[in-house]
């Protein structure tokens, strides 16, 4: 499967160097939009796993353990991507934090951290 690409068309897999921060149109500056971040995280997960259905994860769905059942490798990729794209460190590599409970709580956590004037 190596080199087959994400298969979603939503966001091409990119080599992880030369990151330029938030993608245009979906993130800050100008205030963090939780819905846009949620879509961004969905698109990343679909691209990282090659599973288009992950574009349909509802905000209330648990990402780990139940509902979606992301594995630790994908979870770690997701946290690294959040760090790279939004500059937000979601608790190191700990996949058990409350902020990671659902897609929605994760997006809200990221939005809070990158919102202008919010906590760093």
């Amino acid at each position, binding site marked *: *499967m*190596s080199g087959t690409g994400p298969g979603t068309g939503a966001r091409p897999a990119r080599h992880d160097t030369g990151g330029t921060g938030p993608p245009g149109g979906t993130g800050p500056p100008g205030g963090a939009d939780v819905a846009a971040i949620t879509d961004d995280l969905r698109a990343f997960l679909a691209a990282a796993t090659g599973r288009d259905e992950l574009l349909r994860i509802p905000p209330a769905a648990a990402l780990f353990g*139940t509902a979606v059942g992301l594995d*630790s*490798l994908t979870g770690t*990729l997701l946290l690294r991507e959040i760090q*790279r794209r939004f500059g937000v460190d979601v608790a190191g*590599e*700990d996949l058990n934090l409350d902020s990671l409970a659902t897609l929605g709580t994760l997006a809200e956590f990221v939005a809070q951290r990158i919102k202008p004037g919010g906590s760093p």
Partner: protein
Amino acid sequence: MSPVHPRSNVQPGSTALYECTVPAGSTVPPGNTAPNGRTVPAGDAVDVWWFDTRTVTIGPADLADLDHGERKRAEAFLFPADRRRYRVAHLMLRRVLAGYTGTTPASLRFGRGRCPRCAAAGKPVLLPASGRGARTVPSFSLAHSGDMVLIAVAGRPVGVDVEADAAGCVCSLALALHPADAARVAGLGERERHEAIITCWVRAEAVLKATGQGIGHGLAGFPVGTGQATGLSVNGCTVREVAAPPGYLAAFALAGAGGVIPHLRAEAPATS
């Protein structure tokens, strides 16, 4: 040691189990004989079982072999693919283990070990059958990724991991590895780097699963290397790569030092 190539000896889309190369001249030590003839691997032997979820058929009667918690867990999955993979993995786990314990798949009871670092509930363990005469309870480890399920069974703590080739870039994972491994993969070309990172990942995760340490503590505690691993000593475990189907990388770790002998199981447990 005979070479073990992670992509050799495999046929995609088959329920047949995939063979690890057994070192020439080695013998598998005798184990405890189960009533149906399957033995719990003894000494350094590890049984490795592969299943392709696409070729396993399960019906409503099969689901009765799962316990209440497993059935509820399966129902909680959002996407049918995850639900099916979970059901197949846990049904096959029960059928494999039942062959060693001499009991029915449905009668097996599982508990949780303790993480040696934080004492939180850790890896699943098989509980001894109550009431009956004591029989060796095998250690096991279950992993799944993509369409594949991998089960390792041994006489002492064992961990196994399988990962499908990443659909996208995995270079960011290098930061989660031991610095020596991160430095090692940094010098590779992109494609080789992706494979080397996944190689490190499956080895490190296999070690954590063998020791029972939660992956939340990270994989950076020990280097695992990217070269051939046929009996690598890591963190009190012996690590060996497992021949995997195309598109996958896998490894197992057995607690303790010694030359690990993967023990081929040529037949899959019956599926009704």
